[in-house]
C-alpha cells in the first residue's frame, strides 16, 4: 500500500498544504480567490495589492470562493516523480492533472486529478468538481490539497 493511500486513512489532523488557498470543507470545498472591487475581475491565487487589468487602477479586493465545478480544458499526467519541493509517495504513484475552465470566473485552474482517475478517463469538456485529498503527510498532520474529480452524474 502506498504512503498516499495509507495517509488517507490515518487519524492525523488535516491541514491545508497552502494556507488560505482553499476552504477546508472536506465535503464541498472551494478555492479562495479574490475579486477587484473596481472592475470585478477575478484572481487565483488571491491578488490583494493592485489590479492587473491595464484599464483598472483598483487596489481593494474581496476574498471570494471560486466556482467549485467547471469543464476540462485539457489534461495530462506526471509519469516521473517531480523534483522537490514535491513530496512523493514511496513508491512514486503517477497522477493525472487537469486544467479546468470555470464558467463564471472565465479562468482555467490547474490541479491534480483525484487518485484512481487516469488520463484515459478524461475528455475535454467533461464536468469536474473540486475535492480535497491528501497530498502528503508528515509526523504531525495530513497535508490536503485541492484536486479535480469527474462529476459523478456523467
Amino acid at each position: 500500500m502506498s504512503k498516499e493511500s495509507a495517509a488517507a486513512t490515518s487519524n492525523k489532523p488535516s491541514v491545508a498544504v497552502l494556507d488560505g488557498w482553499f476552504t477546508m470543507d472536506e465535503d464541498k470545498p472551494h478555492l479562495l480567490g479574490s475579486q477587484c472591487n473596481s472592475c470585478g475581475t477575478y484572481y487565483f491565487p488571491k491578488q490583494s495589492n493592485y489590479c492587473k487589468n491595464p484599464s483598472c487602477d483598483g487596489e481593494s479586493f474581496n476574498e471570494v470562493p471560486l466556482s467549485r465545478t467547471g469543464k476540462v480544458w485539457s489534461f495530462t499526467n506526471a509519469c516521473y516523480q517531480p523534483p522537490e519541493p514535491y513530496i512523493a509517495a514511496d513508491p512514486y504513484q503517477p497522477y493525472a492533472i487537469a486544467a479546468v475552465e470555470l464558467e463564471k470566473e472565465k479562468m482555467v485552474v490547474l490541479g491534480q486529478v483525484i487518485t484512481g482517475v487516469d488520463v484515459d478517463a478524461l475528455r475535454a469538456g467533461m464536468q469536474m468538481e473540486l475535492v480535497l485529498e491528501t497530498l502528503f503527510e508528515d509526523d504531525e498532520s495530513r497535508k490536503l490539497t485541492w484536486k479535480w474529480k469527474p462529476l459523478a452524474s456523467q
Partner: protein
Amino acid sequence: MSNEIAILGAGMHPWGKWGKNFTEYGVKAARDALADAGVDWRDVGFVSGAATMRCGYPGYVAGATFAQALGWQGAEVNTSYAACASGSQALAAARAKILSGACDVALVVGADTTPKGFLAPQKGERPDDPDWVRFRLGITNPTYFALYARRRMEIYGDTQDDFALVKVKNAEHGFSNPNARYKKKFSAEDVAASAMVADPLRLMDICATSDGGAALVVSSVGYAKKIGRGDAVKVAAISTVTPSYASGIIEMPDLATDSAAVVEAQSFRAALPKKAYEEAGVAPGDVDVAEVYDLSTALELDWMEDLQLCERGEAAQLVRAGQTRVGGRLPINPSGGLACFGEAVPAQALSQVCELTWQLRGEAGARQVEGAKVGITANQGLFGHGSSVILKR
C-alpha cells in the same frame, strides 16, 4: 526602408553538453561571425550580449564578458535579459543603437552552459513564489507542454503520430547541420517507443537543455553598402511585445490563467508575430521559411498557426502532407529546431536568426530551402518574454 539593419555575419559554436565556460562558446561564435562579416573586431562600436543566469556574475554582464574576452577595444556594451527572448532583445538593442546613428557596426552574442540534471526551484518553504508552489503541487514544465498538446488532440483531432512526424522531420533536417547537438535520424516507431513523460508527450517529443553560442555582426544599411555588402540579408522586424491582459492560455509557472470575466482573453503567442508582420510590411503568405520554438513537437504546430502560416487546426495536415519539410511548400525548422539542438537559452533566439541568415543567402547546404527570400522566427519564454524576427533578402 529606414528601419532595416544589415546582417553582415553569423556564427555559432555547436550545441552540446561540452561543460566549458560559456564565454568560450560566445567568443568562438563571435569570431566566426566577424570572419563571416569580414569586419575587424576593432571596428565594432557596440557589443550587445544576451545574459545567462546560470554562470555567475560574468553571465549577468555577458556583453562586457564577451568584449573583454575578445580584447577590450573601447566599444560600448550592453546586456539584455528576457528569458528565451534574450537574444532577440540583445539584437533589438543593437538595432536601436544603429538606427539612432550612435554606431555603425554592432556585435550581438549569446551563449550558455547548462547544469546537469533537471531544473528545480530553490530550496526552502516559499509559498509566495508561484514557481515553488506549482512544484509543491506536482506541476512540472512538461505539464504545460502536454496540456497544449492534448488540447490540440481534443479540439483538432491531432494524434501522437502527428507529433512524432514533427520529430522525424526535424531530426532529418538537423542530421546535416554541423551546429546541431543531435545528428541522428529517427523513425516514428523510435518516437513511439520512447518513454511517456507527460501524456501525450514522450521523451522524444520534448527538447533537452544544451550548451551553445550564437553571434551576429549587424550594421546600418549605409555601412553595408559602403563595404560592398548592400545585398546583405536585412532585419526587417523585431517584435518583443509583452502579453496583453487577459492571458487566455495557462502559462508556466502559473496555476491559473487570468480571468476573462471583464476583459477579453488574448493569445500571447499570436501577438508576437502580428507585430513583426506589421513592422516589416510583410504578410504571412510571403514567408518562405520559419524557425519556431519547438520546446515540444506539438508546440511547433501551435506556432505555425500563431504565425498565421495556416488556419487554426490545420498544422498537422501540412505536416502529414510533408509540406513542412525542406523541399515542401512551407519548411519549418530547417535547422532541426530545438529537437536537434536542445535549448541554450540566451543563444537560442540568435541561433534562429543565424539559420535564417544562411537560408536567405543560399548557404544552408543539404537543408537549404530553395529560393528563400523571407524568413520569420518565433519564440516564447517565461514571464511575458517572447520574440519574433523577420529577415528579408
